[in-house]
């Protein structure tokens, strides 16, 4: 039996999203949403319905969604669109998603706001960075640690300095109420496949009439996102968005399983937990003296899907920039694993994971004692 504990990478496709997409993936189906004919109108209507569903998940009335919800190919593009829409000096977080960190590299003025050891923004250090800035990009719930940012004080600082606020909420949708975000953000990034929709769809929400400046020209999405729409993916995203209220209700149970997992792990090894206020589904654990990469591979081979750090282009794992930004040293950062749960996980699955992990930890400790002298004396045998 495989157990999937990597929902922050991507949640399994849910049944309603799957069912909603099938008609759009059936052979013989035509229809460009820009076309005037019946097939085109049907596609456009389906996108429109999906937009209303996504808006509803955020509490946006159906009458406003056409104006403020822009579908994209995913959260990365939504982040890029937000950054592109406000070209002035940018402030981002040391723990921002790579799409924001890498996407900002071409800008002339970017400042990086540090975080405290608990992963939250250091507000005292943030304030001077906001002077003269145009946009602050905040990752509301971190993908690696699940750390949640307190938005009201951040918003106050932004208002004081006339800075727009972009909130990357890709990990928050379906896990935390969106009302707090909608009350404070100018731009909100969403992702379909974090809530059980398909990959390849996302959205940027411009909350309070914030300007949107297309990355690529085209009349689609009211001229704010050129390119023929991926109807099936957008429809799937919409169907998944309809399930957001239920997902939220299920989060208390997910949090219980997550806590059970943590209690079990704490009994198996000398471990620590990264982050303080975190998403209900996320558990980022450091295994003292062990190698997270090796643990993740062992778990995968035993049938448990988890993640560690951030994959680089070759597919190997680098020390997490998020953990390093929280002041954790590189060796410790490499000892960390992320477990991220979802509503379909069960009590039995958690027990299975704990029992497999117990076996793996035992073996890792044996191998490490074998390797002891090498690890302690890193290869300095000759002067």
């Amino acid at each position, binding site marked *: 039996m495989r157990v999937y504990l990597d929902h922050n990478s991507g949640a399994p496709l849910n049944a309603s999203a799957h069912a909603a997409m099938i008609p759009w993936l059936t052979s013989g189906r035509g229809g460009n949403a820009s076309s005037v004919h019946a097939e085109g109108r049907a596609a456009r209507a389906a996108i429109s319905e999906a937009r209303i569903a996504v808006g509803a998940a955020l509490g946006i009335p159906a009458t406003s969604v056409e104006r403020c919800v822009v579908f994209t190919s995913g959260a990365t593009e939504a982040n890029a669109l937000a950054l592109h829409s406000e070209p002035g000096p940018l402030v981002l977080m040391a723990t921002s998603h790579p799409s924001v960190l890498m996407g900002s590299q071409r800008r002339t003025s970017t400042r990086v706001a540090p975080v405290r050891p608990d992963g939250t923004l250091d507000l005292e250090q943030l304030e001077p960075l906001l002077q003269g800035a145009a946009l602050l990009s905040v990752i509301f719930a971190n993908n690696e640690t699940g750390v949640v940012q307190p938005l009201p004080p951040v918003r106050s600082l932004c208002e004081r300095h006339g800075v727009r606020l972009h909130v990357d909420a890709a990990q928050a949708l379906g896990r935390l109420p969106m009302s707090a975000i909608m009350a404070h953000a100018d731009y909100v990034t969403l992702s379909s496949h974090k809530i059980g929709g398909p990959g390849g769809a996302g959205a940027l929400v411009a909350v309070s009439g914030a300007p949107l400046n297309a990355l690529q020209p085209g009349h689609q999405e009211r001229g704010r996102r050129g390119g023929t729409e991926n109807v099936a993916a957008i429809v799937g995203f919409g169907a998944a968005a309809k399930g957001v209220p239920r997902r939220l209700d299920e989060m208390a149970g997910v949090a219980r399983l997550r806590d059970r997992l943590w209690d079990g792990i704490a009994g198996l090894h000398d471990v620590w937990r990264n982050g303080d206020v975190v998403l209900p589904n996320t558990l980022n654990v450091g295994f003292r003296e062990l190698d997270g990469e090796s643990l993740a*591979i062992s778990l995968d081979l035993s049938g448990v899907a988890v993640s560690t750090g951030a994959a680089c282009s070759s597919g190997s794992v680098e020390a997490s920039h998020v953990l390093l930004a929280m002041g954790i040293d590189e060796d410790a950062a490499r000892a960390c694993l992320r477990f991220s749960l979802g509503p379909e996980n069960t009590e039995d699955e958690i027990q299975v994971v704990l029992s497999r992990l117990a076996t793996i930890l035992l073996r890792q400790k044996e191998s490490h004692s074998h390797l002891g002298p*090498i690890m302690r004396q890193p290869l300095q045998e000759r002067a």
Partner: protein
Amino acid sequence: MSRVVVAMSGGVDSSVVAALLVEQGHEVIGMTMHLSDAPETERTGTCCAPDDAHDARRVANHLGIPHYVANYKKAFKTAVIDRFVADYQNGLTPSPCVRCNDVLKFKLLLSRARELDAEFLATGHYARVVPGAFGPELHRAVDHAKDQSYFLFGASQDALAQVMFPIGDMDKPAVRDVARRFELPVAEKAESMDICFVPDGDYARFVEQNATPKPGRIVDESGDVLGDHGGIHRFTIGQRRGLGLPGGTGAPRFVIGVSGATGDVTVGDASRLLAAGLDADRCNWIGPPPSPGTPVLARIRHRSAPDPAVVELAGDTLRLRFDSPIRAVAPGQAAVLYDAERPSRVWGGGWIRASLPFSDAPASAQAVD
């Protein structure tokens, strides 16, 4: 059948290893070691470039086995790259592939295999592990042209007990045939020849990018200064070209010594390159070491023909005397010994510290550094 971790470089040899082990019914786990980030502009036919990880992944998909890319960049830098640069700066001729095998493959990757509950680590090396009276033995590959046993002399018997070299009894055309039979996507891929972290083969430039060159004088054996040079990393024992000396009518001159301490490069005529023997240290013996007086066959660099020699001392250090003088013993390289009675068996070896001068009395070693 066993769980086996295969070190998959993305090349045809290790891909064939994975395919053969799958065919034999083993549970195979592909592992690509991400060792360094070589410049992507260069040809990427090297064991650690990202494209090669991609090729390894394609092969693993083709074979239906799990595949992981594991990050060993830090260990590789410490154990191999930094040492490579330091050796040149110390007047030595580095042997990075031996060190990579010793540390990255036989220690770290083998340890990873054990962590993953694998019984064996398999690689695409051309060499063989054979059971012997004193535990596992290391032997040359059947294909002597491809034989890589020189690079593997540092393996412990503990390691060899868990290591498989499944293509050690095949020649290269046979390996290609297997790759074609399995329709592996890398079946026609070119060989990688250079050191993986210096894909363009320009070692001098690599050293200069990673260290401050150590300039010095070019002297002859009597101590007369013949000129200056820009860095000792550009000189290796036996080198004739690139000395930057004015052409003369005399005999050609060769590098016969490189001093990391003074920066002096000593040149002399060809006869001065001849050595009667060598001293080596940090030895590894695969089984009981040879006792003094034992005739052996020795190689002082990869691809050199095995030369007959006699062991004078073999323990943590090695003193070896060749039956007839050999040319260009380079400190920093490995001296690898083969059993004279069973010439395919690797007995072990050590790291060359100094050559024994051809003319001198047996007891005194000529320290090159």
